[in-house]
């Protein structure tokens, strides 16, 4: 019973932690949209804009990655830890 509760709670927690994926999605969408505008306005600066955008996107992705790491921990690491504690 406790095992089932732990596993269920971990699964629910993993699902909830992936809500963190919303933020980077919206933010990167903004960034890419602005980059498209910039390229449309100045097509000659395409290379710089693209590399800067990728860099910024990768940095903005960090929070989403944190959520993902937490989800992975909850799915694969923490259940075994708690189950070992029981």
């Amino acid at each position, binding site marked *: 019973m406790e095992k089932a509760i732990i596993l269920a709670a971990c699964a629910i927690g993993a699902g909830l932690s992936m809500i963190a994926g919303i933020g980077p999605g919206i933010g990167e969408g903004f960034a890419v949209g602005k980059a498209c505008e910039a390229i449309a306005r100045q097509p000659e600066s395409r290379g710089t804009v693209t590399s800067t955008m990728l860099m910024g996107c990768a940095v903005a992705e960090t929070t989403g990655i944190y959520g993902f790491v937490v989800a*992975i*921990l909850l799915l*694969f*690491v923490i259940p075994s830890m708690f189950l070992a504690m029981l």
Partner: protein
Amino acid sequence: MSEYLDFIDIDFWHIVMSMGNLVILTAIVKKFLFKPVNDILNKRKQEVDNFYFDAKETLAAAQKDKTTYEGKLSAADKEAAEIINSAVQKADKLTQDMIADTKEKMNILVKKTESDIETKKRNSVLEMKNEISGLVINLAEKVVRREITADTHNELINVAIDNLYDD
């Protein structure tokens, strides 16, 4: 032995080892890639600089030569122009002299001719006078022989003597 670490298993020695790996790789890259390549790049830069320096020196020398030759060339030009000028002047002078000479000679000749003509004219007038006077005398003698008398003869002589004085 086929054991696994945990998914997230923070281990001090592993951290130290990864740091050491990075430092070792940095040292390797620095010693075996960056240093020799930078040495070569610097050497090449030095060589190119030297090359440029040499080229500049050669260019300066060439320009110096050019200026000297140009100076020489302009001097030669000037000299030639002077020579031509002087030659032209000489020729002008010569011509002028010759013209003046010729004119003088011509004048002299003309004068001489004129005086010759004058003298000849006078001579011929004198000759003509003489001839005419001889003729007149002959004629007069003939006339006189035919109709002269002693009186008229004297009168005539007197008139002739008067005329003579008058002349």
